[in-house]
């Protein structure tokens, strides 16, 4: 362990605590002042503080997926402006080909100065409800080039030496469908980065400028040491895994994400060579986001408590062929890149499940459902509703069942209150509940997916859905079964039409869109699950009597009980018939027969 001269570990920790809480303070400000459901209720945003060199020092308790996403966006700003960074400037960037993520994610950066000397940066990234482009909501899967995706803001100054660049403001206002929400959220971001600056300046007065600058860098080195110590504790070796995205919405071809993870000493190499080429549709994760997703996955696999800063990234190397799905090249569309990022994280977990079979849970559902509804009220005013009924339930783990209807460990978005949606949007939610039997069987079963139904109450709207796992199931681990697949259904009580995972269509008043999340994968041999645990799920109506048979458990009678004798016989027969159990995770294709999408 090396320490910088003259710095002590206590002061370092005190400053680290302060910076983390300052980033949290920024996040609280965003939540309280934001205007859109996606920021204020879905909480799709992040806050961070950087040192003068543009290295992330601390992130607020916000989205794990954003952990590694902010630094490349700031790098692009610093590269473009060089020395032209002045007190009072505020920079914006949403260009995926200059370090940002996808166009709806607008990054704002404020440089912090003390006596004309740059000493750090604050950042807030927020996912905006709309960014213009051909489809409301900014997440359309069926764009084919970035130019269709909306307003592109390469690194620019939104404020110049304290003065708003009114031209940029006007351009944003005229290019988005719901300027009150978008500009309102930008104001929330502005409040937060200014507040973060004030907090950092207080630290300057407490610790002195030079001292603080040294500590801000030292905090990053410290995190690096901690990360390396964690990686050192992992087994050395090399493990491969391939997970799939169903398709890009244009062709039926699956997209393979191939990964080889190599752990050597205190470093990790993630090599995505062999991954499918970039997709025609916009589900490509740009390389910055691919890396960010991989970092988030590895943080959960090492030590979730490590400070989310640049020191964590250093021992991790990511390789991906330019032009491949996980490293798309301009002008590839990336609007729905979130989906790809989730699958990148799944791939990392899958490979690590081979390295650490006793630690890594089965796959979380991974339906990655993003739903947008856009249209116009009779008075000509636009409405855009966007929410993520996202990545879904947890997979079963080595210690317990996967949590039903929870978010994945690499994100932490909230659902949107139904009553708020109905008061705010021309929509009615007609159902929000668990899908019985959707969790993969195992000693510890996967979590249950969630069904959510949206009824349009306006005359007409376009609905755009980004989802996945209709074809490839969330994998089980250590012999556990996969979770059920995602379904999109139009008017379940009428025509009951099964829709593809990615689509854009017009709907009219009274139409109902039903989204059924994939379930989590199971962990361990289903035939080893305690029959009483299966019975409990049956009593709770989370598993049906038919579903219990997947565990080789026969439940009958009223009140229902385990038929011990039949269960024994059934389990014996199932063991004989299935042959040896595959322990390593592998991706299976969905068969309609297994989970027909019927909802009880």
């Amino acid at each position: 362990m090396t320490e910088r001269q003259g710095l002590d570990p206590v002061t370092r920790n005190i400053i680290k605590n302060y910076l983390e809480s300052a980033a949290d303070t920024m996040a609280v400000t965003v939540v309280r002042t934001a205007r859109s459901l996606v920021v204020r209720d879905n909480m799709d945003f992040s806050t961070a503080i950087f040192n003068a060199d543009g290295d992330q020092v601390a992130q607020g308790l916000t989205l794990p997926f954003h952990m590694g996403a902010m630094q490349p966006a700031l790098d692009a700003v610093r590269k473009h402006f060089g020395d032209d960074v002045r007190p009072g400037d505020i920079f914006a960037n949403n260009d995926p080909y200059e370090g940002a993520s996808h166009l709806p994610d607008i990054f704002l950066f404020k440089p912090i100065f003390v006596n004309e000397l740059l000493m750090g940066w604050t950042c807030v990234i927020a996912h905006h409800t709309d960014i213009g482009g051909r489809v409301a909501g900014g997440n359309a899967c069926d764009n084919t080039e970035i130019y269709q995706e909306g307003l592109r803001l390469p690194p620019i100054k939104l404020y110049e030496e304290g003065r708003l660049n009114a031209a940029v403001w006007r351009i944003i206002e005229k290019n988005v469908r719901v300027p009150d929400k978008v500009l309102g959220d930008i104001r929330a971001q502005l409040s937060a980065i200014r507040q973060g600056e004030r907090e950092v300046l207080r630290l300057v007065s407490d610790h002195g400028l030079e001292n603080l600058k040294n500590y801000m860098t030292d905090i990053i080195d410290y995190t690096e040491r901690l990360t390396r110590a964690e990686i050192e504790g992992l087994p050395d070796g090399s493990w491969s895994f391939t997970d799939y995205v169903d398709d890009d919405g244009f062709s039926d071809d699956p997209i393979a994400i191939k990964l080889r993870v190599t752990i050597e000493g205190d470093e990790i190499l993630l090599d995505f060579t062999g991954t499918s080429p970039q997709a025609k549709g916009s589900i490509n994760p740009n390389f910055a986001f691919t890396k960010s997703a991989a970092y988030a996955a590895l943080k959960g696999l090492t030590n979730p408590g490590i400070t989310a800063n640049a020191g964590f990234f250093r021992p991790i190397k990511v390789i991906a062929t330019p032009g491949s799905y996980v490293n798309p090249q301009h002008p590839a569309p990336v609007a729905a890149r979130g989906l790809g990022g989730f699958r990148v994280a799944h791939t990392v977990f899958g490979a690590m499940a081979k390295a650490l079979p006793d630690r890594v849970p089965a796959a979380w559902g991974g339906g990655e459902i993003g739903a947008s509804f856009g249209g116009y009220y009779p008075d000509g005013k636009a409405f855009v509703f966007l929410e993520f009924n996202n990545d879904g339930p947890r997979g079963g783990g080595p210690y317990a069942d996967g949590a039903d209807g929870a978010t994945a460990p690499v994100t932490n978005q909230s659902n949107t209150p139904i009553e708020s949606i109905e008061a705010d949007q021309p929509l009615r939610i007609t159902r929000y509940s668990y899908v019985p039997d959707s969790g993969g069987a195992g000693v510890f079963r996967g979590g249950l997916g969630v069904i959510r139904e949206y009824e349009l109450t306006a005359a007409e709207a376009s609905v755009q859905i980004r989802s996945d796992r209709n074809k490839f199931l969330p994998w089980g681990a250590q012999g556990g079964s996969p979770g059920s697949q995602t379904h999109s259904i139009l008017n379940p009580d009428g025509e009951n039409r099964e829709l593809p995972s990615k689509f854009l269509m017009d709907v009219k008043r009274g139409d109902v869109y039903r989204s059924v999340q994939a379930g989590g994968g199971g962990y361990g041999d289903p035939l080893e699950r305690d029959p009483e645990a299966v019975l409990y799920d049956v009593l709770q109506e989370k598993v049906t009597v038919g579903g219990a048979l997947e565990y080789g458990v026969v439940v009958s009678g009223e009140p229902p009980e385990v038929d011990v004798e039949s269960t024994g016989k059934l389990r014996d027969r199932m063991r004989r018939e299935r042959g040896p159990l595959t322990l390593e995770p592998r991706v299976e294709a969905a068969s309609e027969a297994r989970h027909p999408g019927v909802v009880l």
Partner: protein
Amino acid sequence: MIRAANFLGASVVRMTRFRAGVDIGGTFTDVVFLGDDGSVLVRKVASTPDDYAEAVLNGISLGIEELGLSPGDIGEVSHGYTVATNAILEGKGERTALITTEGFRDVLELARIRTPRLYDLYYQKPVPLVERRLRFEVPERMTFQGEVLKPLSEASLSEVLDRIEASGVRSVAVSLLHSYANPSHEERITEAVRERLPGVTLSVSSELLPEMREYERTSTTVINAYVRPVVAEYLSQLSGELRKTGIGVPLTVMQSNGGLAPVESAIEKPIYCIESGPAAGVVGAYHLGKRLGIDNILTFDMGGTTAKASMIEDGEMLLAPEYEVGGGMSVGHRLLKGGGYILRVPSIDLAEVSAGGGSIVWVDRGGSLQSGPQSAGAVPGPVCYGRGGQEPTVTDANVSLGYLNPDHLLGGEFPLDADAAARALRDRVGGPLGMSDTEAANGVHLLVNSNMARALRAVSTERGRDPRRFTLVAFGGGGPIHAAGLADSLGISRIVVPPSPGVFSAFGLLFADLEHHFVQTHFKAFADLDFREANEILDRLRGEGRELLRAEGFDDSRHQVVTQLDMKYVGQTSELTVSMPQSRFGPEALEEIGAGYGVEHEKTYGYQSDEPFQLVNIRVVARGLSDESRVPERIVSVSGAAEPASTDRDIYFGRAGGWLRTPVVGRSSLAVRSEGPLVVEEYDSTTVVPPGWTASLDDLGNIALERME
């Protein structure tokens, strides 16, 4: 019913001399007796978790005996308890059923789907308080404007009631979508349940919390249903036992909003009294502040495992609209929800960090010093307790630095092993970090201060408030040790340490007023506001408040009825609460309300906007005021123990101050203003006065610390 005429001194005649405040904690039950003349007796007895009332009665009897009173001399008993919280955390509440709208029975368990710990692979949800098979759906539907979209199906309701009857459940919660806008379906269900299942306890969302947001409303209603029978049993038993001993006075219960509730409403709506213990300390500081003329206070309460902070601004306690029971409270709880059970009732806004005297300190793999969240607790306790604790704690550092008497605590009752503390710090902290003993102990002290500063910052700077404008009121066993260091780091220049800081929460119980809270969602943009309709709501809520107060013996001259509005700019996220400047809604009132909102918004977020306003909730607080002050002129301890003789010892005051020979005195010797370095030792606490600070005793018996310029 003990609805006596002399409720909380509301009557003209006062028959009695003493009031008792009883605060149940995890380890100890604190009983404080406060006489009209300001004389105070403190009794600490071991809590009795199998039957909490036992310790309460035991403590009260001991005090009565010691004071030479008869039970009839006790004029009031105020109570803070954890019975409801424990029932929730231990899953020992009443088995409960829920009736909800078709399609939404999992709203309760889905919650907001967020996880309280980022990146955690093994996250488990809290077990829902109503299991899935007891969550029943009925076809019916309202719109957010209160129109009936689908009528309630009587046939289905009847079937559901059959199933509830068959399940044998005795407590039922009812929460339908948009019932805040139109309660008629919930009312119909109420009627049907009363008719079909007499004897079943009912909790109905439109009665308890007519507020938008289905999960929060449902969860709150379910918590009420789940704890109500347990709380009712406990409180009825306790009242009965008190009467048996001859104490025939009103029993009042501390609510999490800082007001007292009569025992009947605590039984009816137990959700208002769930986290009553931590609230009481803040209430104590609030009333102390009123008496001292201090309007802006940060409270700081440090115990064995956690430290809590709260804010009082412009003479008002700060209320949060909701909190999570069992959420593992932390400063991050504003961002990371999902660890507990959401309870949407106004409660004193506390920020809590895992930093207390028992917090274990350790060095992580990156070579950094950490404190907590693990705590040595009371057993084995810090190393210096000599009860088998091996891991150094914050208390061990405080002993090593001389802040705590290195020989003993509690006036000599409790011997300490300072050498063992120093050894443990050397082995686990100083050695690995290459620091001297003093540096290591000082490092621990500074680090834990920075963790606790996080809680204080969460309630101040996170809201745009500058802590330098505030007075720090420090209590709890460890509060007065760390107060000055914390104040220095936050730029605070004034500290108040109340008498008996270790049991100050129990004082809060005695200072509080009786209070009732009411809320009604009225989701209207100002432009769409129908004044007649809004004023009707005002009249109704105020009427309910006054009616309750009258029934409790407060005549109208002693009602304080405050109206507040939750509002926001149209489309904005969470609301801010502002007070209603006029008694009625009208064009002029709206102007004033809007202006008030702008000021509040600017204070909190740094800007105002010219956007239109949205009214969300109307809130009414009805307080019953006593005819006499509940805070005496001066507080004097009548406990037998004599103050220890003044002495001195070596104490370390950081790198700047170094080791200094420091006088150690009792509280009473501060009658003359004294300059630090100085340590004030008392039975249940130690106050550290560093160089650069002065300490003096005010009229009320508080230690006032001031930083010298």
